[in-house]
């Protein structure tokens, strides 16, 4: 009796297992593409991903946004970015300095950028960083280096 039942059940069980695998492969392959790609990243890369949306918004606003939109975005960025993320904070501060029309204001903001990221305390890397930002901006103001950096101040 047992042997007869096993003989009858073996076929459906094997078919069930095969169908389960086929269904899983068909459904999860394309659907999980992004999840699988995320899983292949290093821990550091994965940790940076949740902030990518905010960073993308900041970059887009810097590229095309009005002066008012940029100022609002930079304030949001400086609120969002932790003090420990010195490079990102310095980048936001450099953007602030570029759109600031007052040389005294520019000097204060660039000093803050130097405090956030000590590699920007030298004039050459500061100018290089500011030039990268002016190239990434497609509208005025902010497409030229600010007076503070052009005029040869320390």
């Amino acid at each position, binding site marked *: 009796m047992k042997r007869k039942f096993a003989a009858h059940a073996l076929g459906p069980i094997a078919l*069930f297992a095969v169908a389960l695998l086929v269904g899983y492969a068909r459904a999860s392959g394309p659907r999980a593409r992004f999840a699988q790609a995320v899983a292949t990243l290093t821990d550091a890369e994965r940790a940076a991903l949740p902030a990518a949306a905010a960073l993308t918004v900041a970059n887009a606003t810097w590229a095309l946004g009005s002066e008012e939109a940029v100022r609002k975005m930079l304030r949001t960025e400086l609120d969002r970015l932790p003090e420990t993320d010195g490079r990102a904070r310095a980048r936001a501060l450099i953007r602030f300095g570029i759109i600031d029309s007052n040389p005294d204001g520019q000097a204060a903001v660039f000093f803050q950028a130097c405090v956030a990221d000590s590699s920007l305390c030298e004039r050459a890397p500061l100018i290089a960083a500011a030039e990268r930002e002016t190239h990434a901006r497609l509208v005025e103001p902010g497409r030229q280096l600010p007076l503070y950096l052009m005029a040869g101040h320390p």
Partner: protein
Amino acid sequence: MTRARSLGLVWPYLLAGALGYLLGSIAVPALAALADGSTSTPLARVGFALRETPSAPSAAWAVLDADLQVARSSLSAPQREVFDLVVAVRGLDNGGSSDWSRAEQVCRALTWPRCDKEALAQLKDLSLP
């Protein structure tokens, strides 16, 4: 062999095949997603799509739609509208193909100085995180 008898022999196979396929395509991925929740969040998947501009089958993009809604809801105005602009430019809700007319529409609503296609095309690269 009568028709009823042959049907009696076939139905366990049909049932096993259908049940296996349904469980494999619905229940197992759902359980796997629950188990994997800590490493692959909606924000992480959107972050990856924003960073990589990946090519993916339509089913993968369809799943990303729900993730985009989660990412969008994490932002406040006007960042949310800027996010919509980036999504349109990068085609993240359109199978990876840019939706220029929608991008221009969102850009104009933001009252930004330039919303022409050339500027929006440049935005595609300049917005990369």
